[in-house]
């Protein structure tokens, strides 16, 4: 299927993050999950001012501090030291989730184990194997205005993570709006999952062949390079 054929300086993770960053609009309040979502911050152009929300009680996290300048008490939800952006604020966990439940997050960007063609998300438990807990993922997936999934298209056993129906316990139902993988950009619409773009050098046929979910198309499918 061509996985790994592209030899470039940009990793697939960076390419996903670069594509995801195009969805960010000036003035947005955004929560980034751990992993590829964290990379998205690096690709947001300086003329777009955004505020990053952290579940542990910060609105306005900035980049990682220089080594030796960390404040051990000032961390993101992943437990890593951060700096503050201009206009940042601190609050308790109830307020952190008030922001989420009240619908004040314009976008959440998160990783998944599975995402289904109607937008169901599974990302918190593999029963009997990996049981980390849901953390704040249920609120984020259920309540953010726009839920963007960034993930590899296939799991490490080569199975499609984009599925007709999730087999793992759900994080939230009908939650995902846009799915960006190393192979494609897909949009969840009321009548199904639409293929919007393929990631160069994959073809539409490559993506359909690698996807367990039913992929619909209307109009031209773009190519993201």
């Amino acid at each position: 299927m061509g996985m790994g054929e592209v030899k470039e300086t940009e990793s697939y993770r960076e390419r996903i993050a670069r594509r995801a960053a195009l969805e960010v609009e000036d003035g947005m309040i955004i929560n980034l999950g751990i992993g590829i979502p964290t990379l998205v911050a690096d690709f947001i152009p300086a003329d777009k001012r955004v505020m990053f929300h952290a579940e542990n009680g910060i609105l306005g996290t900035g980049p990682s501090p220089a080594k030796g300048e960390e404040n051990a008490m000032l961390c993101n939800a992943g437990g890593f030291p951060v700096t503050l952006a201009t206009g940042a604020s601190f609050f308790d966990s109830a307020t952190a989730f008030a922001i989420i439940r009240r619908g004040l997050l314009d976008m959440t960007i998160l990783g998944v184990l599975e995402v289904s063609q109607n937008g169901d998300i599974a990302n918190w438990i593999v029963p009997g194997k990996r049981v980390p807990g849901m953390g704040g993922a249920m609120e984020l997936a259920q309540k953010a205005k726009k839920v963007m999934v960034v993930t590899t298209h296939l799991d490490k056993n080569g199975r499609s993570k984009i599925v007709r129906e999730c087999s793992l316990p759900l994080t939230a139902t009908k939650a995902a709006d846009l799915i960006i993988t190393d192979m494609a950009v897909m949009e969840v619409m009321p009548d199904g999952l639409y293929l919007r773009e393929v990631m160069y050098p994959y073809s539409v046929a490559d993506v359909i062949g690698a996807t367990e979910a039913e992929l619909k198309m209307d109009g031209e499918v773009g190519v993201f390079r």
Partner: protein
Amino acid sequence: MTNRFEKVVSLSEALTHFHDGMTLLAGGFGGVGNPPTLIQGILDRGVRDLTLISNDTAFPHIGIGKLVTEKRVKKVIASHIGSNPNAGAQMTAGDLEVEFCPQGILAERVRAGGVGLGGILSDVGIGTIAEKGKQKVVLDGKEYLLETPLTAEVAIVHAKKADRFGNLVFDTSARNFNPLVAMAGDITIVEADEIVEVGMIDPEEIVTPGVFVNFIVQSEGVNWQWAWEK
């Protein structure tokens, strides 16, 4: 009755309130905001069979993660245990009971306990296994889960600054669950980095009013290495 104007006690005095089989609420998030000196005291005192209510189980050698690693906990109510592999291993082995709760709902359940409410209604987790065993309530045609309040015999809190009345200020993101936990203990014990006289903290600056606090101990500081320091 606690003298409301003199709540500062020695660590050993504070530790007399801990016993085997007790329920314990702990502030903190990924270890940040877990009170290090009180946790060390609980370990040294040999307290076991704890029911621990906290956002997470921190890391194996950080904060309340140590209580799990040292097998002092029989049940945990948390949103996340992924950063402490010992918690997962003990759960798989059947040695640790884990009740997962979505993070914001856990915060609200602790808050509900702390502010004297009988429960809260929320739609978070509907359509997932998080709704299992919860009563459903339909209000104005919309379905909610009834979430129950959480309190504990003792709540432990880490503050940046406390005055002798118990008015508290927190340190940046170490605030997290601490102000909620501070309200929800039958006995609330605060570990503070700095203890000052009453009147020395600007009332506008106070996050937790001292009326919720029973005892204050002087922090001896963080006694672990953070995961990012390695």
